[in-house]
């Protein structure tokens, strides 16, 4: 049940033309650079600084509440971070591609062709998040580090190695993009098999080879397609389509990869820890998370890591094992574990939505005040600088969060059942695991 969006000439020309994407990129890049500068030169008060407010409240709200659930990797298609590096790599901004590769153009090492590095970078950011989220200069340092690392990697490696293997945000966007109702796929795989030059992967006069190092003819899930639209431009057979599809269509095919399974645990666990530490009433926890380098912070970091990489996966493994025993399945745990971890994707996404609803609706006032006075220098550009802080829609928050979490559980339990049928293992223990996790999240948020 899919509907092709690119069958509409207007949509197709909008996506094929480089200018609309470039204009969005331009605005995003300007905003991104301003966010970095505002951290260094603006007020050190986080909730008055454009960098903090627009990155961690406005952008985060758009990303987690709209972009990822509905457009998957839609954000990656307009993300400004890889742009200067990519322009350097190509030696062009909008011009048709040159024949010779620029700079070193090395292949990314085979052993690192997975998302373990992204798991590590996200965990690292998450461990320091209380400081990153609240101190403008630290946010700027992190953003600048990502920016320059992306440039450096574009000079050394081919394509978008940073986006594909390092970006801490790209990893979880890819995971949750599987749940989105949008996909880029080929129309007819036979045409791809007969295509000799594979311009979608190698590039042509019409456009660049896939920056995400993906051969579109082999795409079966959204995880690694950055929706950059290059293949739409290069395919000589008009064989690339953007579809609207049912939510979570990719989850019908359980993952067999341990790196993706652990990404699901990292995201699920981090959402629960954030809900407790950042939104809970426990001041000592907040202080421990904030006091980077102190003994209490090391304790916090140890609990954080033990919960995400130890307790959650071990309990989940126990649940999968019980399911295996119940059905007397001969499938190895090594295969069953990542397959069932696929079912955690909807739950993790909904945990983040529930967490973000609370965080964003409570702090949205700062967006308006920061718009008028982005650097905290006493400006009042739109007359909203002195807007009195107040939470928005607080009466709706609990019902909304409940709806999201219970909906997430239903979605994830149904996905687990489908995985269970595929691998012939009972999903009941996994559903029990997800139910307990949901009850815990409710307890933390409500």
């Amino acid at each position, binding site marked *: 049940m899919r509907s092709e969006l690119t069958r509409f000439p207007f949509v197709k020309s909008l996506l094929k033309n480089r200018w609309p994407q470039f204009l969005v990129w331009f605005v995003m890049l300007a905003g991104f650079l301003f966010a970095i500068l505002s951290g260094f030169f603006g007020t050190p008060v986080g909730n008055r600084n454009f960098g903090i407010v627009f990155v961690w409240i406005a952008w985060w709200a758009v990303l987690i509440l709209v972009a990822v659930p509905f457009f998957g990797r839609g954000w990656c298609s307009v993300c400004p971070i890889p742009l200067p590096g990519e322009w350097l790599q190509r030696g062009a901004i909008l011009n048709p591609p040159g024949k010779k590769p620029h700079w070193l153009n090395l292949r990314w090492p085979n052993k690192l062709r997975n998302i373990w590095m992204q798991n590590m970078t996200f965990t690292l950011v998450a461990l320091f998040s209380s400081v990153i989220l609240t101190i403008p200069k630290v946010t700027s340092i992190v953003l600048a580090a990502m920016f320059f690392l992306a440039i450096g990697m574009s000079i050394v490696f081919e394509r978008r190695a940073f986006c594909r293997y390092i970006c801490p945000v790209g990893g979880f966007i890819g995971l949750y993009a599987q749940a989105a109702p949008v996909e880029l796929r080929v129309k007819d795989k036979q045409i791809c098999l007969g295509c000799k030059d594979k311009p979608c992967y190698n590039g042509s006069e019409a456009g660049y080879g896939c920056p995400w190092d993906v051969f579109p003819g082999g795409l079966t899930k959204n995880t690694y397609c950055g929706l950059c639209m290059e293949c739409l431009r290069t395919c000589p057979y008009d064989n690339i389509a953007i579809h609207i599809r049912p939510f979570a269509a990719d989850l019908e095919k359980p993952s067999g990869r341990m790196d993706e399974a652990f990404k699901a645990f990292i995201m699920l666990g981090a959402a629960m820890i954030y809900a407790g530490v950042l939104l809970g*009433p426990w001041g000592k926890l907040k*202080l421990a998370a904030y006091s980077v380098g102190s003994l209490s912070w090391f304790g916090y970091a140890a609990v954080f890591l033990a919960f995400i990489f130890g307790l959650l996966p071990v309990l989940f493994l126990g649940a999968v094992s019980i399911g295996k025993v119940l059905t007397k399945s001969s499938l190895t745990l090594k295969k069953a574990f990542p397959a069932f971890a696929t079912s955690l994707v909807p739950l993790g996404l909904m945990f983040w939505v529930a967490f973000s609803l609370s*965080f964003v609706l409570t702090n949205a006032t700062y967006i308006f005040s920061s718009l008028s006075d982005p650097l905290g220098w006493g400006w009042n550009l739109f007359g909203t600088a002195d807007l009195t802080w107040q939470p928005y829609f607080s009466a709706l928050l609990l019902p909304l969060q409940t709806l999201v979490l219970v909906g997430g559980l239903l979605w994830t*339990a149904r996905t687990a059942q489908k995985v269970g049928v595929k691998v012939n293992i009972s999903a009941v223990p996994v*559903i029990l695991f997800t139910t307990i996790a949901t*009850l815990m999240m409710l*307890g933390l948020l409500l």
Partner: protein
Amino acid sequence: MALSKQQWIFIFFVVLAGAVITVAPLPVYAATPTQRTFRVEASQFAYSPAILKVNPGDTVTIELVSKDVVHGLYVDEYGTSVTADPGQTARLTFTASKPGSFRFRCNVTCGAMHPFMIGKIQVGSNTWLWRASGLTVLAALAILIFQNLIPKTRGT
């Protein structure tokens, strides 16, 4: 996949049960409203005590004492607030007319972690949490039973 008549009936009853869990009146623990006074100390970035429990109808007075910088205390959904200067005590009095669990939070920028300076006031029992937990268990049971209403197909 089209749903069978049996499945539709099942979904109808699950939705009905969900509606009952959501809106059914719960037994109320009736306590005579009293005057409750709490001394709450505020320091970067925590309240102490951070969790207050009162009964519906109580008249609540919070004596907010700031131990370091200027702090505020805003009670979600009640929309009432107070600000305390360092070393000073400020008083906030309100009637706990709405039952449930509500966050109170600092509404005066007080430092880096200000947006996360949060406490909790529980008026009566946290009924919404109980209802949400009930819905969660219902959802899990429903999906388990629903699976048995689907004709068996062989796994791949």
